[in-house]
């Protein structure tokens, strides 16, 4: 305790050091005065009294020294002193110091930004207690061609898993979508999360107000309830705590608010409302698989054990539930439906992981280049100080002490650079959070937390040590005193003197080469992506509005269709609108639509019990293709007569037509149907261009387009089926303006005042979003590559310029002896080119190995794309030639008389 207290005082002593010194001084003076006074009383002369007093006190300076040593900790004292010295020395060369701090700030800052992103997304993606026990459960159907790799879960799976599992502590299904809220101000459609019991229990975050859903809330027939999230509660009800118990009209039905989630609650797709998902147990079939499953494993249970458990339950499930009406159980047996358990983290992180690691890796390379460059600058400084250091050593400073001083200087530089870099990083992170790609999961959570701070500090110290140790090894080693014997600059210097510096430049060029190849590959990828014809044209002109006609307003399919038709007419009448369309979903919105269904062709015979591949289904009204700019390759578009007469017609995508009949024209007149015998055959009247619905880097899915209004449909009722919740597409020259959006909303509300409009977007935004990962990686790599090129070139320039200045005398003698300036120039340029050449060659080898790591990010090019490699080599060598020439030109300016006389 006593020792601890003392240690604390010692640690904090520097804060009061100046005042303490004064107090001690006063105290000693006081003491001596008192002693003198006593001597005077004893009859001594004033001078003698004072002499005796001083003698008695002892060596005041030595006492002060002991006092000081005791006051603080010796180690921190020297550290502080060394740091003060270092800062004083650095301030003597403001230009160099400024340049070093700035480059370091860029290097450390950019690494901190990306680490901040990685920290939030990859390292701690789940803001839930004991998140490692959370898993998601996916199904796959290897026996069914065309089914996506991972599909969700069905209500029947929910019941089976819930009742039969041995490994889950909590288990539930969720899905997300919109829910209309009417009766308060404008009708709106907030993002809603539908959960069964068990989902909120699994994530383990308690509501801030009210309660969780109970078994009763899941039971059909009981009073309907809703939980609000913090953001929605603040936005809509200004944080009014009396909200609990109030009733809201959601999807035209009254629901009582039973809880509000806390501010820190996060869930995928950022819900605003949480609604209980109710399944009628006795009305469930094996499919469809529209929900997602989440579970919390029991303590100690591994993912492998959970996988074994779901495999066991899959078997039980397959025999316990009936197939959907019109489908055969054989379909499910043939599909070989298998469930697998994955850590939830994997689902949240998605496919952004490789991109982030590549970016982080390249920024680490930039930091290495920066360190190499700073080491080079410090070498120059250390060389200039060599004589001074040698004298210090001769005067008795141990080499350890000199080395410590130099390292201290580098560490101080590192810390200063890190501090500025942290400032840059926090600004950059703020911009990233505001403008970053929406596909980055948990974007809003990214920021500077203690973990990121620690990273920045660590990187600063590490880079300080890294670039600091090179000059130390070279100039402050045990041989430091020998430098005195050399006579410094008078002699021309041997090749060995430049070996370290040359090596550093070669390393810089090699690393820059790797980074430039990386960004070059991303540029080529981006070019390839942009050159893909996505199946729609000029997406910036297309405004997309989602809307829903509530059942309370129109239930009868034909009436629903008439309403949509009326809205389309009003939208088309808006000035500047060239075309309008309606469909169940927009392109690139596959996250909104279901996974598709098997589609049969009348003339394609299948083996007994075999089912055909899954195709994407979209339901459209006339004008959709024209609005999107999708070309009709054969036949025709649908007409309103097709819809209202409920003709059994269809349109298919080109790839489907080719697969089945080899040619677009050949598909016309053929008949297809969805799922099972319950659905009637429909005749193909048109074939359209493929639409890259899952993003341009993915093969376009095969599409079947049904009319938005049909007489009989497996998913519809007795009176047929119409699309009630769908998307209006408006092609206009004013897209992107507030006024167009306001007029469009007005047009919808003039037909139906209670119709919510949601998910407003432009097709361009969806298109950009589908390439967000590529463009994000591209921009980051381009920045890294650009920085690397710049720093590398500065490095070459520095070395050549330095070599020229060191060899001024030699140049003078050579010129005096008749050497041609042009020949001398060539000599230096050759030296620089040689460095660049070796660097580029090493870079080429390194790039060939390293870029393989990013092949999952590439599209249309291989990691060894010759065009990229050639371009980067040309760029680097060209830049090196130029910069060498500029640096070496100083040779010509050397006046031989001056040069020889100078020393």
């Amino acid at each position: 305790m006593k020792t601890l207290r003392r240690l604390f005082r010692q640690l904090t002593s520097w804060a009061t050091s100046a005042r303490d010194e004064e107090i001690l001084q006063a105290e000693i003076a006081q003491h001596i005065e008192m002693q003198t006074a006593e001597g005077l009383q004893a009859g001594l002369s004033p001078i003698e009294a004072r002499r005796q007093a001083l003698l008695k006190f002892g060596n005041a300076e030595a006492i002060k020294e002991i006092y000081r040593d005791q006051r603080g900790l010796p180690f921190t004292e020297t550290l502080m002193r060394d740091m003060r010295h270092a800062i004083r020395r650095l301030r003597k060369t403001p230009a160099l110091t400024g340049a070093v701090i700035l480059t370091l700030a860029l290097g450390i800052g950019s690494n901190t930004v990306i680490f901040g992103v990685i920290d939030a997304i990859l390292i701690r993606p789940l803001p839930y207690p004991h998140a490692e026990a959370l898993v998601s459960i996916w199904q796959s159907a290897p026996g069914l061609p065309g089914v996506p790799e991972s599909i969700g879960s069905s209500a029947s799976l929910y019941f089976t898993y819930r009742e039969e599992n041995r490994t889950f502590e909590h288990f539930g299904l969720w899905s997300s979508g919109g829910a209309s809220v009417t009766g308060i101000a404008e009708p709106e459609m907030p993002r809603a999360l539908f959960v069964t019991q068990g989902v909120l229990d699994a994530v383990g975050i308690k509501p801030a107000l009210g309660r969780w859903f109970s078994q009763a809330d899941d039971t059909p027939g009981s009073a309907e309830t809703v939980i609000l999230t913090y953001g929605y509660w603040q936005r809509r009800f200004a944080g009014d705590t009396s909200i609990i118990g109030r009733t809201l009209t959601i999807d035209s039905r009254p629901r009582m608010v039973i809880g509000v989630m806390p501010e820190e609650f996060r869930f995928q797709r950022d819900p605003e409302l949480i609604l209980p998902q109710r399944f009628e147990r006795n009305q469930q079939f094996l499919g469809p698989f529209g929900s997602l499953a989440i579970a919390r494993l029991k303590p100690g249970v591994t993912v492998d054990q959970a996988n074994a458990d779901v495999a066991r339950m899959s078997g039980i499930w397959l025999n316990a539930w009936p197939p959907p009406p019109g489908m055969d159980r054989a379909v499910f047996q043939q599909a070989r439906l298998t469930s697998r358990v994955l850590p939830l983290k994997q689902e949240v992180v998605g496919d952004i992981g490789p991109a982030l690691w590549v970016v982080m890796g390249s920024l680490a390379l930039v930091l290495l280049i920066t360190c190499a460059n700073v080491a080079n600058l410090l070498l120059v400084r250390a060389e200039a100080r060599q004589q001074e250091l040698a004298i210090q050593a001769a005067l008795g400073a141990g080499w350890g002490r000199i080395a410590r001083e130099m390292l201290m200087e580098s560490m101080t530089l590192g810390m200063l650079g890190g501090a500025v870099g942290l400032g840059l990083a926090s600004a950059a992170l703020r911009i990233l959070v505001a403008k970053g790609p929406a596909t980055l999961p948990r974007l809003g959570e990214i920021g500077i937390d203690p973990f990121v701070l620690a990273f920045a500090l660590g990187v600063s110290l590490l880079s300080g040590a890294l670039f600091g140790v090179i000059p130390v090894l070279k100039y402050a080693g045990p041989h430091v005193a020998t430098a005195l014997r050399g006579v410094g600059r008078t002699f021309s210097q041997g090749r060995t003197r430049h070996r370290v510096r040359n090596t550093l430049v070669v390393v810089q060029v090699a690393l820059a080469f790797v980074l430039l190849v990386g960004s070059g590959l991303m540029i080529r990828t981006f070019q390839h992506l942009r050159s893909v014809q996505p199946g729609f044209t000029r997406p910036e002109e297309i405004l997309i509005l989602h809307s829903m006609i509530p059942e309370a307003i129109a239930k009868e399919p034909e009436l629903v269709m008439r309403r949509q038709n009326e809205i389309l007419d009003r939208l088309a009448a808006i000035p500047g609108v060239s075309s309008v369309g309606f469909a169940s979903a927009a392109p690139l919105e596959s996250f909104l639509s279901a996974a598709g269904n098997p589609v049969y062709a009348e003339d394609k015979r299948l083996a007994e019990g075999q089912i055909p591949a899954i195709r994407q289904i979209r339901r459209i009204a006339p004008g959709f293709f024209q609005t999107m700019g999708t070309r009709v390759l054969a036949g025709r578009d649908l007409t309103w007569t097709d819809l209202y007469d409920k003709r059994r017609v269809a349109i298919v995508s080109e790839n489907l037509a080719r697969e089945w009949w080899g040619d677009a024209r050949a598909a016309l007149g053929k008949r297809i149907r969805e799922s099972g015998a319950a659905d009637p055959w429909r005749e193909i009247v048109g074939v359209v261009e493929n639409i890259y619905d899952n993003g341009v880097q993915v093969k376009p899915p095969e599409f079947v387009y049904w009319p938005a209004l049909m007489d009989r449909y497996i998913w519809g009722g007795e009176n047929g089926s119409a699309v009630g919740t769908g998307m209006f597409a408006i092609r206009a020259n004013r897209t992107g303006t507030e006024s167009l959006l306001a007029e469009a909303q007005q047009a919808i509300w003039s037909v139906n005042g209670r119709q919510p409009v949601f998910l407003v977007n432009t097709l361009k935004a969806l298109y950009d979003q589908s390439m967000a990962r590529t463009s994000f990686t591209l921009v980051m790599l381009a920045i890294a590559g650009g920085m690397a090129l710049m720093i590398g070139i500065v490095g070459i320039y520095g070395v050549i310029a330095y070599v020229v200045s060191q060899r001024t005398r030699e140049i003078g003698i050579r010129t005096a002896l008749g050497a041609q300036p042009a020949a001398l120039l060539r000599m230096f340029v050759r030296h620089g080119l040689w460095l660049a050449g070796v660097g580029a060659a090493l870079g080429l080898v390194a790039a060939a190995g390293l870029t393989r790591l990013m092949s999952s990010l590439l599209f249309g090019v291989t990691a060894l794309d010759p065009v990229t490699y050639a371009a980067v080599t040309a760029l680097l060598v060209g830049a090196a030639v130029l910069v060498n020439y500029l640096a070496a030109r100083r040779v010509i300016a050397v006046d031989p008389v001056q040069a020889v006389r100078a020393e």
Partner: protein
Amino acid sequence: MKETDVRQGTLALMVLKTLDVLGPLHGYAIARRIEQISEDLLTVNQGTLYPVLLKLAQEGSVASEWGASENNRKARFYRLTRQGRKQLQAEARSWEQTAAIIERFFAVKAQNLK
């Protein structure tokens, strides 16, 4: 180094005891008192007192404040804290034990010599 430690230890104990007996004192008075008691046997530089006082202050055994000396000069007065009193008791006890052991040691040695 070892020697200074021992001397500092004993000096600290003397300071504590002095403050215990006489109440708050300034540095010079403490020095004088120690001189008087030890009858100049302890030829310590008076100045070495100050690092000891600092150490005791850092440990929380003494506290100091500015006050006026007998002849109305400004002086820093040191006083024993509760923690200091406890330390004094503990160290006095251990000192007595040590002294007793040493004494017995010398006694034994004398007998053996006879």
